[in-house]
């Protein structure tokens, strides 16, 4: 190697060493917004959330008698979240779509080159929503790539529509839902979904559509009658945890998919649990598995 090429290499290495620390710090402009509204005469609430990247928490409001309270912490250099309450329709809309304005950042402390995009929780928005207890709620949540925790204990949820792109979402019905749920739709793309105590939702029909990420549904809880569970799984896997006392009927259509249900017996193309005819509460599963696995366990 000649002296010129050695010098050139030296320049390149030196430039890199100088540039990397200089480029390490990304300018972040953090803002916080806290919003709340007194309940007054409101008799119901519709919540529409469009959330991009970050952390999203939803639970019952801790302060009474608030209709809602919203806490947001966001990087104003990336996102411009907004919220609106329409008193005429009783609709609260929160929008915090992610904006990728900085695809690369170098962070030596965390170990090298980072690709910032949806799902980068460190740079995402923190959104916490508290909702009033005791009034019917219609929830429509559209989540991008975030960590979402929905604690629906002590809330009266009339409808829940959850649409998730690449989020890790946990839904917990910690206490029995005081109202009957007219619709419960969970549409998960390349994300993970965990539903705890789904039996407390008091939904006659539950629709679950899961993509790559898969879903885990626990049907524990205080529910009576028959629950219809419609499951569509593609590429991922769905695991159902069903209490022992619940009668199970499962119709499963598989396309290169698999079914793992050791406690069920197949009769005339349909799977039944041994207590199907005697159980006081039942679940009827209509499942479609395309390149996916369906597992049914009895807890």
């Amino acid at each position, binding site marked *: 190697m*000649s002296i010129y090429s050695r010098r050139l290499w030296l320049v390149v290495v030196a430039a890199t060493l100088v540039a990397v620390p200089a480029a390490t710090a990304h300018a972040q402009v953090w803002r916080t917004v806290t919003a709340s509204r007194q309940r007054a005469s409101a008799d119901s609430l519709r919540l529409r959330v469009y959330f991009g990247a970050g952390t999203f928490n939803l639970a019952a409001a801790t302060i009474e008698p608030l209709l809602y309270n919203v806490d947001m912490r966001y990087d104003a250099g990336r996102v411009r979240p907004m919220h609106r309450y329409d008193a005429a329709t009783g609709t609260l809309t929160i929008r915090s779509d992610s904006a990728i304005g900085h695809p690369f950042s170098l962070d030596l402390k965390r170990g090298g080159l980072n690709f910032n995009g949806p799902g980068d929780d460190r740079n995402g928005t923190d959104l916490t929503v508290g909702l009033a207890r005791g009034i019917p709620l219609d929830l429509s949540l559209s989540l991008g790539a975030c960590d979402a925790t929905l604690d629906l204990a002590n809330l009266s949820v009339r409808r829940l529509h959850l649409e998730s792109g690449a989020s890790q979402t946990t839904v917990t019905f910690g206490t029995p839902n005081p109202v009957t749920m007219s619709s419960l739709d969970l549409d998960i793309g390349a994300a993970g979904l965990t539903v705890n105590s789904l039996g407390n939702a008091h939904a006659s029909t539950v629709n679950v559509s899961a993509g790559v990420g898969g879903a885990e549904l626990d049907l524990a809880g205080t529910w009576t009658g028959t629950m219809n569970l419609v499951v569509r799984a593609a590429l991922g896997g769905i695991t159902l945890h069903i209490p022992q006392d619940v009668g199970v009927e499962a119709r499963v259509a598989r396309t290169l998919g698999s079914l793992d249900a050791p406690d069920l017996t197949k009769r005339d193309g349909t799977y039944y649990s041994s207590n199907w005819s005697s159980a006081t509460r039942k679940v009827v599963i209509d499942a479609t598995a395309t390149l996916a696995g369906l597992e049914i366990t009895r807890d």
Partner: protein
Amino acid sequence: MPTRRPVYTRAALLATALAVAASVNGAAAQAKHSRARAVSVSDSIAAAVDSLGRDPNGVVIERSAVQQGPQTVAAGATVNGSIASWHGPLDVRGTVTGNAVALGGDVVVHTGGTVRGDAVALGGHVQLDGGTVQGEMRSLSALTVGPLARTIPRTPAQATKRSLSLSVGWYLVLAVIGLFAALFARGNLETIAERIRDDFSRSFLYGVVGQIALLPALVVGIVALCITVIGILLIPFAIVGFVLGGAGALALGFLAMSYVTGEAAMRWRGAVSAYAPPPVVQFLFIGLSLYFVLWMIGGLLSWAGWLGAVLRLIAAMVTWVAVTVGFGATLTSRGGTRAPGGRVPPPQVPPPASDASWQTPTPVSGVAAARRPTPPPRSIQH
């Protein structure tokens, strides 16, 4: 021997240019600072009101509703419309028919107090002390839009860091891709580089045409798949494949161009041996580094206003030409599978065995022993 401008002269010129740019910007910054000091409180309030009205989480109030210092709405009193305090708390004990706003303070709604609109605190908190707010209670840490949201547009330092970050990020990504290309697609890379050397202008022309034709080609492909009906199912895969293919061709072309650039730089320095095989990785990284340096200079001078913008524009133009030429060469050489003249590049021949290879111990079974190289027969001289 060509005469070269001394290194010291060039360094002095560069330092002078930097000093001029710095002094121009320093003077501009000083003037801006002086103007900022001259802005009156009234102007600040007007700016705050304007920003608050345009903030997605803000509120619209009249400029005339804002009063300096702490404000109080006494019990039994009624304010028709909105009221706002500037740099002080707002205590509401009576009735406000509009919005109650504190710009740089808390809004406290005491027992008996009523706000029929929104209660908004900028840089403070809304506190409910037994009162009633019929609208929304909002606390904003700062504004995000408008003249007061000065931190939102990037400062020169932030802009510089961002430019450097982007430059380094792309450089590292391309370096990794280049390393893989040099290791696993060296033949393709060299063929494309050869195409660039042979016909630079034609490669550029093909590159321009190829870039223009990318989108129409995708549309035509999708239409063709639609016509076949069954191909409709393949459309998502075709789109993904097309995008990946296009991006791959652009990247490979740029890497080949970097290779040629690095080679040219080394030849200019007289550091290329005519007998040794070309050091592909070295050429590639030197070429990439040269383009990177262009972007780094532009990024480092982001603070210098128009000078930085011009440098970044130059870097962008140079990079675009490089990408275009490389893309054209990639297309004409069919991804490096066709050498100039339409011939298929010869397969890579393993390097000849060294003279001592015949001495290698021969396995026991089934392998023919190497032949010892023998010198050519001497010519008989009479």
